[in-house]
């Protein structure tokens, strides 16, 4: 053994008693195993004894021939794989993939058997020498010798891509075979699947869809294009589920989304006669839903839809509120707003997945355009007035609630909620005093809604009005109980005692009541002041009504329902046949504008003209004369003589209301400034403006100029002072 090495004098050798086994032992054993591997690859394994082969492999490892066993395995397996590779290369056209699949499954079966036989080596020799385990080794060798062989690699890729292309163009391909081949690539490791298939596949797909989307968009309208895109997307998802790695789904859908949607997004949305605006106009829920679902998948997709929708709503809304035709009829105006709101609500719910951001966009658009028309608060209040006066008769309770909720929604959009409050108070007062508010529950329910929306303060006066009505009823009962007997057959009096402040203040216009009436009123005054000390009672004759029984010249009897002023005028004719305007004015002392209106309604309205005017004309002149119209007839026994009032406010009234609102705002702004300064002590101008605006925005939008005026006023009154060093700073003076 160590011949030629004996140069040293002597050498201490470890005591060895080497057991000499058959020197050819390793070769012989390996031959057996090698033969077995050949037989396995040649489908001849049934004649092999597993136990014997396992024992042989065990013995080789045990006797330190693991290295020989391992390298032998590598070269034998490589040999067979190269043979297989040649067979696959030789396969013609369509049979290429099938041949590859057959050989792959052969190799897998063989690999399983070989691994079983060499299990002991796998367990002991391989970990201790940091080698690749048998199964993995088999996969690696397959990859290197078959999949990566020059003649197979590109052919495999091209075949796969071509099959997919054919499937995309509508042909039916063998999906099972595809699945097996793709599965093989996946088994060979994620990098093989990615580099040899997925990456080129995605690139090819991008090209394909880029071209196809270009073609589509030239010849289809938006709805059809979206249908096609959706179908393609679903096809790709289906393809992944049938024969690709599930992880590829996100990537291939990404490609389709980018090529078919993201790249054409703006063009699609703005497509003439079929784009988003058209869909919104025509309520195309299905198309809109499809657009939403597709655009949602790409960055900025939804914001694109949202922006177009917002600007569309704003434009059409602006048209609506600034249309002078629509403004003529407040009820129709509000009905239009509600219809618009319903339309978009429905679109958002049914097509846009009830998306919060879309709801917000809708709300902000409404807020934007409703406030473009300064009369919106008035109109909304008028709408409520209309509904509560008559519109709700015979309507079910739930429907009433529904309408009220919708009104509240519009109310929320208003920036000038205090203006609404002003009008609402006026309208409510009229409803209450005329006794026309039939559904009391509906009134109260709306008040509760306003209260939850704006707080107690907002509705306390409104609630006060209801209380006054109730108390008045009780007072009248008491009055009638006390004086009922002595009043006898004379006129009856109904008084509503209104708390000053709770009700819309009207300039107290006094007029001369007919003698019978003023006596009765005196009685009530003494009764009322007798029960409530320390109060002052003043008559609001301009707000009352009266029922008169009138007998006309031809003997016809009618019951006339008139205002208190009209009553005063008519009662004059009990003692005179004809009166001039001047005489009437003198006798009643009704302010001339009111009187003119009152006479107009008595003399100029066709069918209700209980008076006759000389000369006959539409307008009342100072020199006109009036007499009872003996020829008055009516089909009804009860005739209601309305006062000619514009339902909408006239221009000067509007100015007045506006002024009152501005007046009311002043103390609120001042209170807000003081509250803020009290807690902050020192603050600069811009921050005060910002905070005040924020605090008040639930009621109205404060005007910065007005806030500045209020600050100055507060400085004058020594609530605040300017900082000496920095003039922009304000200081709170306790």
């Amino acid at each position, binding site marked *: 053994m160590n011949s030629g090495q004996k140069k040293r004098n002597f050498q201490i050798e470890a005591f060895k008693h080497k057991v000499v086994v058959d020197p050819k032992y390793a070769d012989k054993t390996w031959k057996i195993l090698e033969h077995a591997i050949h037989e396995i690859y040649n489908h001849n394994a049934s004649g092999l004894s597993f136990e014997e082969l396992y024992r042989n492999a065990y013995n080789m490892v045990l006797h330190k021939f693991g290295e020989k066993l391992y390298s032998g395995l590598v070269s034998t397996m490589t040999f067979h794989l190269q043979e297989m590779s040649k067979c696959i290369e030789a396969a013609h056209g369509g049979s290429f993939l099938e041949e590859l699949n057959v050989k792959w499954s052969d190799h897998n079966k063989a690999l399983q*058997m070989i691994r079983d*036989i060499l*299990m002991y080596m796998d367990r002991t020799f391989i970990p201790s020498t940091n080698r690749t385990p048998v199964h993995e080794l088999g996969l690696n060798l397959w990859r290197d010798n078959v999949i990566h062989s020059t003649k197979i690699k590109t052919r495999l890729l091209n075949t796969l891509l071509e099959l997919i292309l054919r499937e995309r163009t509508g042909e039916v391909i063998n999906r099972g075979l595809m699945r097996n081949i793709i599965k093989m690539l996946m088994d060979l490791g994620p990098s093989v699947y990615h580099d040899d298939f997925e990456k080129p596949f995605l690139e090819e797909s991008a090209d394909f869809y880029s071209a196809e989307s270009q073609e589509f968009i030239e010849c289809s309208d938006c709805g059809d294009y979206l249908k096609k895109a959706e179908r393609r997307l679903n096809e790709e998802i289906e393809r992944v589920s049938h024969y690709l790695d599930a992880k590829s789904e996100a990537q291939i859908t990404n490609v389709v989304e980018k090529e078919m949607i993201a790249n054409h997004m703006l063009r699609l949305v703005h497509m003439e006669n079929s784009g988003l605006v058209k869909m919104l106009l025509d309520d195309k829920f299905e198309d809109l839903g499809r657009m939403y679902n597709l655009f949602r998948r790409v960055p900025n997709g939804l914001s694109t839809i949202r922006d177009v929708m917002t600007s569309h709503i704003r434009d059409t809304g602006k048209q609506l509120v600034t249309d002078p035709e629509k403004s003529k009829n407040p009820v129709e105006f509000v009905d239009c707003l509600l219809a618009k709101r319903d339309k978009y609500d429905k679109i958002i719910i049914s097509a846009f997945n009830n998306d919060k951001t879309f709801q917000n966009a809708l709300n902000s658009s409404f807020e934007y355009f409703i406030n473009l028309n300064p009369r919106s608060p008035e109109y909304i209040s008028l709408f409520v007035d209309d509904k509560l006066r008559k519109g709700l008769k015979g309507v079910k309770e739930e429907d009433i609630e529904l309408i009220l909720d919708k009104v509240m929604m519009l109310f929320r959009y208003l920036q000038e909620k205090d203006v609404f409050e002003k009008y609402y108070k006026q309208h409510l007062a009229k409803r209450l005093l005329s006794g026309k508010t039939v559904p009391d529950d509906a009134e109260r329910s709306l008040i509760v809604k306003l209260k939850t929306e704006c707080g107690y303060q907002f509705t306390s006066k409104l609630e006060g009005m209801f209380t006054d009505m109730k108390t008045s009823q009780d007072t009248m009962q008491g009055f009638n109980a006390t004086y009922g007997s002595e009043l006898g057959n004379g006129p009856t009096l109904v008084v509503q005692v209104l708390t000053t402040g709770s009700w819309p203040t009207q300039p107290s216009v006094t007029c001369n009541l007919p003698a019978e009436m003023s006596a009765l009123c005196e009685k009530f005054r003494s009764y009322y002041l007798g029960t409530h000390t320390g109060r002052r009672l003043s008559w609001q004759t301009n707000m009352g009504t009266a029922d008169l029984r009138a007998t006309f010249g031809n003997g016809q009897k009618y019951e006339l329902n008139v205002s208190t002023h009209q009553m005063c005028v008519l009662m004059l004719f009990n003692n005179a046949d004809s009166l001039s305007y001047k005489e009437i004015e003198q006798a009643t002392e009704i302010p001339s504008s009111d009187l003119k209106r009152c006479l107009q309604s008595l003399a100029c309205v066709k069918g209700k003209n209980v008076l006759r005017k000389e000369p006959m004309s539409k307008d009342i002149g100072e020199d006109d004369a009036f007499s009872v119209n003996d020829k008055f007839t009516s089909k009804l026994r009860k005739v209601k003589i309305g006062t000619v009032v514009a339902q909408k406010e006239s221009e000067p009234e509007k100015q007045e209301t506006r002024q009152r609102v501005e007046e009311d705002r002043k103390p609120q702004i001042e209170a807000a400034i003081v509250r803020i300064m009290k807690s902050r002590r020192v603050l600069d101008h811009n921050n005060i403006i910002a905070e005040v605006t924020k605090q008040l925005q639930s009621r109205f939008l404060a005007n910065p100029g007005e806030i500045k005026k209020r600050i100055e006023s507060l400085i004058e009154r020594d609530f605040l002072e300017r900082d000496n060093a920095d003039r922009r700073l304000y200081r709170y003076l306790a």
Partner: protein
Amino acid sequence: MGIQKDSVRFNVSGRIFETTATTIANAGRNSLFGAMFDDNWDLQPNATGTTEHFIDRNSDCFAVLLDLLRIGELHVPPNIPEKLLYREALFYGLLDHVRSAKWGPFDGNKLHLSQSITGRAPGDGTAIRAGPDGGCCVAHGSMVHVYDWMLEEHPPITLDYQRVNDVIWADSKSIVISACERLGRGEGGMGLFSASTGELRYKFHVTHENQVKSYTAGALSFSSDYKLFSSCKGRSNEYGIGVWDQVTGKQIDFFYEPPGWSLGDADRLQWLHGTNCLLVATLFPRKDNCYVSLLDFRDKSMVWSWSDIGAPITDERRVRDAIAMEDTNSICVVNEYEDLGFMDLRFAAGSVRWSSRSRLMKGKMPDEPCYPKLALHEGQLFSSMNDSISVFCGPDWVLTSRLRNSYGGSICDFSIGGDRLFSLHSEENVFDIWETQPPPPIM
């Protein structure tokens, strides 16, 4: 037909065994028997067409292993050497079955002495460390002996006369050894070795101002995120705690010893998983005083510290070992009479509450005493004293068990891991293996 379809016949060196496919299937796919089944766990037909499988192996062992597959318990008759059984199990691919049937989940109160191994080297051992899979390594002088869970010895690691200070298992395949610097040679420090072959894989260096320094590495500890800590003493005052990445072997941090304190000489390092801090304890007699501190490496601060500097020192008050118990936010210390003391981790600069358990030891100390060491395992506290190990449980740390093997003298170190407890005796390098019996199979 006649033959039950499920039955299998084995001819093991002439002895016939008959069993069922269900029993054999318990062996799992990665065994010799696994190859006899197809993918649906149906028996594959034999190559020769007979129903008998011939196996050229020891039939007695086959009987034991067949019973293991049948009932899940291991019963080895005295006439079968354990090593032989392991060889046979390895052949069949059943070694994992044997291991899990051999001993059960660790419980300090149910330990029994399974084996004592007498070593080859005489004299004091430095340390014994249990491996994660039930193996262990024993350090003495400049040698480290490595045993796998079958207690088969692997090639020992020899450090060419550098004294080993500490050993720690990095994983079941590799161990880290810290050693003394040898004067003038620039060696020492730490290295990672293969447990199966004893080869050095790589060394851990200390760099100071971009220069690689030679140093003496002391106590070792791992953190949960694969960082390795060691107390270090360099030639030019690089005293402190070094931090390395276990995976790359690169130094990533160094905590220099503050003046008037001791880190580089530490006897014990312990990583606290809950607070992400490192306990460093330097104890008598390596230093005259004891220094216990908690280091936070994220902001390089000492978040808790205790020392007995300035306190009147008596033997009863001298701390011999310290261990942090995160569950109770305390540190347990022990004196040389095995009295336990506790400190609260939540308050800095506290004092030790000694629970004067016994003073009986005083005056009864053996000639060659070994000072107490502490270990903690799942709420059980272990302390070694002379030739026995005490087990304490519960919130008040009541003594519940005592482990003692009359042979081998005092215990100089012990370690718990891989569901086993290893104790190293000072005489003749004997070490004991304590195990918990496997639980009976669920009826």
